């Protein structure tokens, strides 16, 4: 990847690092106990997560887009990108989310330089 991954001091977009964890993150299609997982369960799990996030983030301002990486590769795994209409709303959300937990894990939140997700693919 040749992109510069600089963290801007202000941006309408926030990155929540490694926040989404697939139920089958260890082995695709299988839960950590080794039981096969119904693909609908995995989808439901993802949708619940999306709903939680959307609901929480909407408190801080209008959301332009919400992207959740549910890939299984190491790169960007579980990263959540949320773009607000206004930079102030993003910084409000950043202030409010810092130091909190989601599902027992700390929320790691930073500004992200990404403003156009069609251009954001990093290969």
């Amino acid at each position: 990847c040749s992109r510069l991954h600089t963290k801007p001091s202000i941006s309408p977009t926030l990155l929540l690092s490694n926040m989404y964890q697939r139920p089958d993150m260890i082995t695709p299609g299988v839960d950590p106990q080794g039981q096969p997982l119904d693909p609908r369960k995995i989808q439901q799990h993802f949708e619940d997560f999306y709903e939680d996030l959307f609901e929480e983030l909407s408190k801080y301002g209008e959301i332009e887009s919400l992207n959740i990486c549910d890939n299984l590769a190491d790169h960007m795994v579980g990263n959540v990108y949320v773009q607000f209409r206004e930079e102030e709303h993003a910084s409000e959300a950043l202030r409010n989310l810092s130091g909190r937990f989601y599902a027992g894990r700390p929320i790691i939140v930073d500004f992200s330089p990404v403003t156009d997700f069609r251009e954001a693919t990093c290969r």
Partner: protein
Amino acid sequence: PSHSKSKRTSGFDMAPPSANLLSSAPMQDQLPGVPQPLPGISQSM
């Protein structure tokens, strides 16, 4: 289709359990040791 499930609790502000996250062994029978406050001792910074 009826999607009338009651609202889940959000995962937000779900703090990590005090037990080690890596140990998945059931520990229900174990009472956590509650540290007793020491009477008469106040800590000065």
